């Protein structure tokens, strides 16, 4: 852009915009920060009032509630199922979405229109909650990890994104490989996939975060309380305010502990979002890229 000298009025506007942006960031982060402070606040240990109201810093730093939460088996159980479903879900999704998208990227594949139509239609209309629930029940997938990873395995939108990406790969590459005697499978595995790392990574991230945060399917399809994912364990403690398990643990430890349910709730919130907060700044730009790829119509 042209380099124009900024007038004092311009500088003032700049200052205001920068300040507004800073305020927006504060508003976005503050609710999360309150959880950090409440979870770390040690005032209650001395019998003083817990952090409440407008919290800025813990009055006394303690990791006591974290130590307590570590003893909470349901959380580790939930973590294990969440990690399992995320890994399994991402692997299955990537494998099956890519082998679906590759044939569709060939414009003159026989029946291409019908296949694409069949996939696209699911973006417009779905059976809904109850029929899906009954289907999983009749397939005897209730209480299995498959009920969480299989139903969403091949998303129509992801197929489209991958198909468009595959189409953008120069055809000459494939043709020369075919002249050299490579079949479609070999071309797909050795040429297309290695060239498609950006789109594979993007879709993997989308699917992965989806699985990490998913809870509704686990709530519906998993009735065994020992097989619930972390989000459902959280829901029980935070939303349904069912702290009986926590109380049980506190009693088992036998200490007359000063930690309130609310502080433990905050700690458990931190448990679930710390992994996300840790990786999020590094992967965020890939998500943006994914949105951009998705926004391009093809």
């Amino acid at each position: 852009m042209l380099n124009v000298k900024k007038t004092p009025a311009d500088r003032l506007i700049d200052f205001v915009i920068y300040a507004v942006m800073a305020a927006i960031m504060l508003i976005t982060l503050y609710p999360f920060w309150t959880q950090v402070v409440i979870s770390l606040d040690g005032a209650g240990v001395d019998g003083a009032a817990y952090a409440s109201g407008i919290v800025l810093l813990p009055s006394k730093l303690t990791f006591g509630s974290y130590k307590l939460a570590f003893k909470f088996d349901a959380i580790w159980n939930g973590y294990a199922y969440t990690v399992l479903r995320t890994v399994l879900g991402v692997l299955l999704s990537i494998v099956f979405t890519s082998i679906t998208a590759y044939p569709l990227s060939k414009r003159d594949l026989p029946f291409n229109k019908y296949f694409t139509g069949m996939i696209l239609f699911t973006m417009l209309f779905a059976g809904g909650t109850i029929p899906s629930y009954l289907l999983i029940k009749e397939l005897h997938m209730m209480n299995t990890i498959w009920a969480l990873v299989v139903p969403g395995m091949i998303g129509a939108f992801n197929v489209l994104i991958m198909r468009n990406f595959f189409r953008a790969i120069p055809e000459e590459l494939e043709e020369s490989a075919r002249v050299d005697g490579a079949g479609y499978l070999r071309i797909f595995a050795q040429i297309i996939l290695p060239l498609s790392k950006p789109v594979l990574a993007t879709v993997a991230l989308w699917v992965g975060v989806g699985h990490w945060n998913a809870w509704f399917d686990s709530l519906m399809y998993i009735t065994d309380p020992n097989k619930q994912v972390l989000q459902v364990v959280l829901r029980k403690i935070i939303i349904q305010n069912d702290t009986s398990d926590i109380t049980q643990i506190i009693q088992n430890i036998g200490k007359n502990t000063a930690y309130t349910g609310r502080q433990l709730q905050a700690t458990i919130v931190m448990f679930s979002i710390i992994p996300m907060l840790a990786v999020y700044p590094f992967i965020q730009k890939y998500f943006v890229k994914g949105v951009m790829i998705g926004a391009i119509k093809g």
Partner: protein
Amino acid sequence: MNDTVIVSGAEARLAGKKRDKAMLRRSKMKKIKQYRVLLLMMVPAIVYYVVFQYLPMYGVLLAFKDFKILKGIMGSPWVGLDLFRTIFHDDYFYTVLKNTLIISLYKLLFGFPVPIVFALLLSEVTNGKYKRVVQTVTYLPHFISWVVLAGIFFSFFSLEGPLNTIIRFFGGNPVLFLADAGYFRSILVITGIFQSFGWGSIIYFAALSNIDPQLYEAAIIDGAGRFKRMFYISIPMLVPIIAIMLILSMSGVLDAGFDQIFNMYNTQVYNVADIIDTYVYRKGIVEMSYSYATAVGLFKSVVALILIFIVNRIVKLIGGKDHALW
């Protein structure tokens, strides 16, 4: 003489058509053979889509049946439109429908402009590093599940929370915000904006960064200040994408935000917060009225489908074929 020509001409055309068809079929067979590996690769997807996407669509038949779990969908007796009659005579259904429409229209009215304004302001930030930090921070809530966000808002709006502390400081009476039907919808709208405005701004931000810088340069030479540049270049360039996003969001007008409401509502606010999706869950999964819940869900899906067709039509009329969904 003439007759024979005509007849043989017709015959020839017929034979030609047959030949063409046969050739087409042969070339199609050849193509299928050529692409057989690729067609085989489609098999898992076809099985998946038939089983997990189309079988539930078939399950929609439940809405027209008196479902007996032991008899299955096929064996249960037909009841025609009886369930829909029951629904349309059910006062609570209208409460739920009204809530759905009100909440999602409120969200649209107040939430829709926020990402646009935010994108416009952020595009005025010239320091690249600062811009990236703001983006990273504001996108964050989009990646946190509503279970966790609801937990955070519970403590935020609780009696000892920051908001009530401020109210007390100014001498007011503390309010149980999340159990108060008068506040609940506003809280849904505000927390909804909190969660999505940053992420929602990406599309506008992308549109803004695609504007030819020469336009701005020309405007600067002509003596346009930054407000004039915003009003006469940035905003007009955003109008097509705004129109399309607005129309697209109309098709989701019966989705008022299941994840958010399901995690934040409670029995005290059902009257103002229960939406179609939460109602379907409670009726179907909790109370096991499968047929009734399916019928309510079907009503929603069909209205949504019709809306999508209308929306596509409007997008075509306004934005031209390029922006339409199909």
